[in-house]
C-alpha cells in the first residue's frame, strides 16, 4: 500500500455538512443529460423530442469519435431538448416512465470479458463509455488510447462532497466487480485512493494498488494523488472513473444491466436539513431542494462549492456530480468591511481576523473584495500540493507560451486542483479559469 501525506491545503470549515443519514424523498419524474458536461465533444443526436427510449439506449454520439455514444439515463420519453447558442445542445430532458423502467430489472448473465478489448468493446456497445474519463484535460477517454494507469479516488476531500465510506458502504461486490474489469483495461497499475481506515476489504485485493491519502483538501483529488505517485508526463494518459460510478459499472459488468442510481447529498449553509438521498444520474435538483432551503435567494450548485456548476433550482445534477450544494446569494455591503476586526462573521485562511474560522461558516456568493492584479504573497503555494510552480505556469498561460506550459506541468493540473488557490487569492484571481484556458490551448494545438 502506498501512503501519501499531503501537508499543503485547507479544509474549508463550511456550514451545512450533510449528516450521515439517508433522507426520504419523492421519486424523480424527470432527469436530464447535458452534453455540456462533456468537454471537447461534438454531439450529434440520435433521438428526437417525444421519442420513447429505454435505459441505456444511445441518445447521441460524438462526431469526433463516433464509436462513443451516450446512454439514455432513464426509460420513458424524451420530453424536451433544450438548445443553446448556435444550436448547441444544452439539455436532453427525459420524463421517466416507471413501468418501463422496472421491466429493465431482468438480470442478464454475467458477460464474459477476458481481455482489454473485450471490456472496452462491451462498454462501447452498452453506450457506457462516457463513464471512463481521462487525465490530462478531464474529458471522456478515447477508447483507442492506451492508458499508463487507471485511478479511482474514494477519498473525497472537497468541501461538502459525499462521504464514500457512507454512500458506498453496501456496494462491496459491485465495487470489486467494477475494479476487476477496470484492471483489465490497463497494462499498468490500477490505483485506488482511500482515506485511512476506510474500505478495509480493498486491502485484500492484490490486483489493485491501494493509496492511502492523508491531509487537507485537495489531497483526495486525482490530480494531486497522481502528482505524488505517478506523475503525468507529456503524452501520458491516465483513465479514471468517479467513485460513485463504481457501483453502476459493477452492476453492468456482473449483471449486464444499466442502473443509474447513485447516492447523493444535499448540503450547504442554505440547506435546512442537509443529508443524503437515494438518487440517480442527472436527477432534477428541485426534488431534493424543495422545502429544504432556508432562504429564497440562493445559488443551487450541482457539484461542490469550489468546482460545481451553478444550475438554479430548476436545473439538473451534472453527469459526473454527486452532490448538490446550496449557498445564500448575498448582496450585503458591510460598512468598511476591509477594516473588520473579525469574529464569527468572517472566514479567512490568513490569520487576518481575530477569532474567526472557529465555527462552521455561512459562506455566501460574495466575492469579498474586488478583483486586482495578482500580488504574489505566499498564498497559492500553501494550498497547492504539487511540485509545480503554479505562478510561473499561470504566467506562461497568459503569455500563450505553449512550450513552457507543457514544461511547467499543465498536463498534471485540472481546475479542481487549483480551486483552493482561487478561493484564498486576495486578488480574487480565477486560477481555475486560467488553467482551463491553458488546457484548452494545449488541447486544440
Amino acid at each position, binding site marked *: 500500500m502506498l501512503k501519501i501525506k499531503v501537508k499543503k491545503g485547507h479544509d474549508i470549515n463550511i456550514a451545512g455538512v450533510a449528516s450521515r443519514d439517508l433522507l426520504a424523498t419523492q421519486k424523480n419524474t424527470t432527469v436530464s443529460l447535458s452534453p455540456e458536461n462533456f468537454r471537447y465533444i461534438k454531439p450529434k443526436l440520435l433521438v428526437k423530442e417525444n421519442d420513447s427510449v429505454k435505459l441505456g439506449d444511445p441518445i447521441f454520439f460524438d462526431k469526433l469519435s463516433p464509436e462513443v455514444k451516450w446512454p439514455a439515463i432513464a426509460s420513458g420519453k424524451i420530453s424536451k431538448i433544450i438548445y443553446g447558442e448556435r444550436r448547441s445542445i444544452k439539455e436532453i430532458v427525459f420524463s421517466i416512465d416507471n413501468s418501463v423502467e422496472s421491466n429493465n430489472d431482468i438480470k442478464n448473465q454475467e458477460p464474459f470479458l477476458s481481455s482489454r478489448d473485450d471490456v472496452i468493446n462491451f462498454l462501447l456497445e452498452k453506450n457506457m463509455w462516457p463513464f471512463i474519463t481521462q487525465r490530462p484535460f478531464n474529458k471522456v477517454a478515447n477508447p483507442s488510447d492506451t492508458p499508463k494507469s487507471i485511478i479511482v479516488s474514494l477519498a473525497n476531500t472537497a468541501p461538502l462532497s459525499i462521504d464514500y465510506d457512507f454512500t458506498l458502504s453496501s456496494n462491496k461486490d459491485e465495487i470489486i466487480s467494477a475494479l476487476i474489469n477496470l484492471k483489465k483495461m490497463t497494462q499498468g497499475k490500477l490505483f485506488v485512493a482511500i482515506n485511512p481506515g476506510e474500505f478495509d476489504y480493498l486491502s485484500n485485493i492484490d490486483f489493485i494498488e491501494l493509496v492511502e491519502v492523508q491531509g487537507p483538501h485537495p489531497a483526495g483529488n486525482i490530480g494531486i494523488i497522481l502528482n505524488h505517485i505517478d506523475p503525468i508526463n507529456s503524452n501520458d494518459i491516465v483513465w479514471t472513473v468517479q467513485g460513485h460510478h463504481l457501483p453502476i459499472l459493477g452492476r453492468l459488468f456482473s449483471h449486464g444491466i444499466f442502473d443509474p442510481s447513485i447516492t447523493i447529498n444535499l448540503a450547504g449553509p442554505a440547506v435546512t436539513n442537509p443529508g443524503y438521498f437515494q438518487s440517480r444520474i442527472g436527477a432534477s435538483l428541485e426534488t431534493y431542494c424543495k422545502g429544504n432551503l432556508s432562504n429564497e435567494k440562493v445559488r443551487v450548485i450541482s457539484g461542490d462549492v469550489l468546482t460545481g456548476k451553478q444550475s438554479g433550482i430548476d436545473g439538473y445534477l451534472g453527469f459526473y456530480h454527486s452532490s448538490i450544494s446550496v449557498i445564500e446569494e448575498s448582496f450585503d455591503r458591510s460598512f468598511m468591511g476591509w477594516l473588520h476586526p473579525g469574529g464569527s462573521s468572517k472566514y479567512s485562511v490568513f490569520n487576518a481576523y481575530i477569532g474567526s474560522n472557529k465555527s462552521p461558516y455561512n459562506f455566501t*456568493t460574495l466575492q469579498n473584495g474586488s478583483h486586482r492584479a495578482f500580488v504574489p504573497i*505566499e498564498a497559492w503555494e500553501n494550498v497547492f500540493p504539487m511540485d509545480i510552480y503554479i505562478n510561473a505556469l499561470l504566467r506562461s498561460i497568459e503569455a500563450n507560451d505553449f512550450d513552457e506550459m507543457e514544461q511547467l506541468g499543465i498536463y498534471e493540473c485540472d481546475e479542481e486542483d487549483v480551486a483552493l488557490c482561487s478561493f484564498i487569492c486576495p486578488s480574487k484571481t480565477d486560477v481555475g479559469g486560467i488553467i482551463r484556458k491553458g488546457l484548452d490551448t494545449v488541447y486544440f494545438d
Partner: protein
Amino acid sequence: MNFLKKILAQSGKLFEEGKPLSFAYPLWEATDTILFSTNTQNKSGPHIRDNMDIKRTMFFVVIALIPCYLFGAYNIGYLHSSTTAVSSSILSDFIFGMTYVLPILITTFIAGAICEIGFAMIRKHEINEGFLVSCALIPLTMPPDIPLWQLFIGTCFGIIIGKEIFGGVGTNVFNPALTARAFMYFAFPTKISGDKVWALVPDGYSGATALSIPANPTIDMIAELAKNEQAINATNLFSLNSMSFDFSTSNLFWGLIPGSIGETNKLLILLGAIFLIYCGIASWRIMVASVLGLISTAGLFNLLADYSTNAMLTITPLEHILIGSFLFGTVFMASEPVTSTHTNKGRWIYGFMIGVLTVIIRSINPAYPEGVMLAILIMNMFAPLIDYYVVKGNIKMRISRNA
C-alpha cells in the same frame, strides 16, 4: 448607513459610461468600495471566497508601519530636546516630531494619490491600494527636515517610474518606495545623505549616524583610541561617540539615535515583521535569509578586518543588523511580494543576497554607508533571473522524469 449608501448609489450614476464624470469613475469606485465592501459575486467556481482581499492586505502593511511612525515622531522630538537641553516631556517631544512627520506624510500621500488616481483614470482601471503602502513607506525612509518639494518630486518619480510605467501594481520591477528614495538620494544628496540631516540638532553638534562613524572616523577619534591603546574598531568608535549620541548596542536597538524617521526602533520593526508574517502577508523566508546573508558576510569581513585599515570591516554582525535601516528595509521593502522573487527557493536566494550586498556596499564603499536600499534595488532587478533559474530547475526535473 442607508443614507450614505443611497448617496453613493445616486452619485454613482454620474460616473457611468457616457456621463460627464465618467473619466473619474475610478475615484468614485474607490470611495464606494472603501466605505462599503463590494458586493461583487463569484461568477463561476469557486462559488465561495476567502474574506481576505487586497484592500485588507495593503491596509495591514500600513498598520504594521504605524508604530514606526509614532516612535519616529517621538525620536525627532527627543533628539532635538536632548541636544538643545530644553525641558520636555514625552508628549511635547512627540508633538514636536509630529510637526515634521505630518507634513511629510501628507505631501507623500498627495503626490502618490495624484499619480495613482491619474493613471487609473487614463488606463480606466480601478485604483490599486498598493500605492497606500508605497506612500506609507516613503516618509519613513526620509530625514525629518526633507524639503517637501523634493519629497513631492521623489514620490511622483517612485510611483510613476517605479510602478506605473511597468503597468502598475503586480507588474512593476522595482519597489516604488525605494525607487523614490534612490532618486532623491542621487538627485538631492545634500538633504538626504551625510551626517547633518538625520536629526534636528543645533549647528555645530556632531550629528553623525552610526554608519558614518566607522566609515569616516575622525582624526580626533583615532588619536583618542591610540592614546588609550585601543584597537580602531567599530565598537570602540561607537563608544567614543557617546559624547554626542548613545550608540551602545542596546540603544541601537531601542532607537533613540539619528536616522530616517522609521528605521531607528528595531523592536517596533520586529513587531511589524511578526505581525506581517503571522497574518501570512510578508515572506518570512526573505527576512530570515537576508539576516543570514548579512550575518555570514559580516562574520567573514570580521575575520578579514585584521588585514585592512577599513574600520567598517570590524562591525560585528549584531551591530550590522542594528545600525542603519537594514532591518526596516528587510522587513518592509525586501519582502514586498511583487518585486521580490515569486518562488520559495528564489525567496531564500533573493533574501540572502540582499544581506550579502548590504554588507558589501556598506563596508567596501564607504561613500554609500546605507547599503540596504541599493542592495534591495539591485536584487529587485535580479529577482526575475533568480526565478527563471528556479523554474528552469523544475522544468529540468520534469524533463528528466519524462526520459
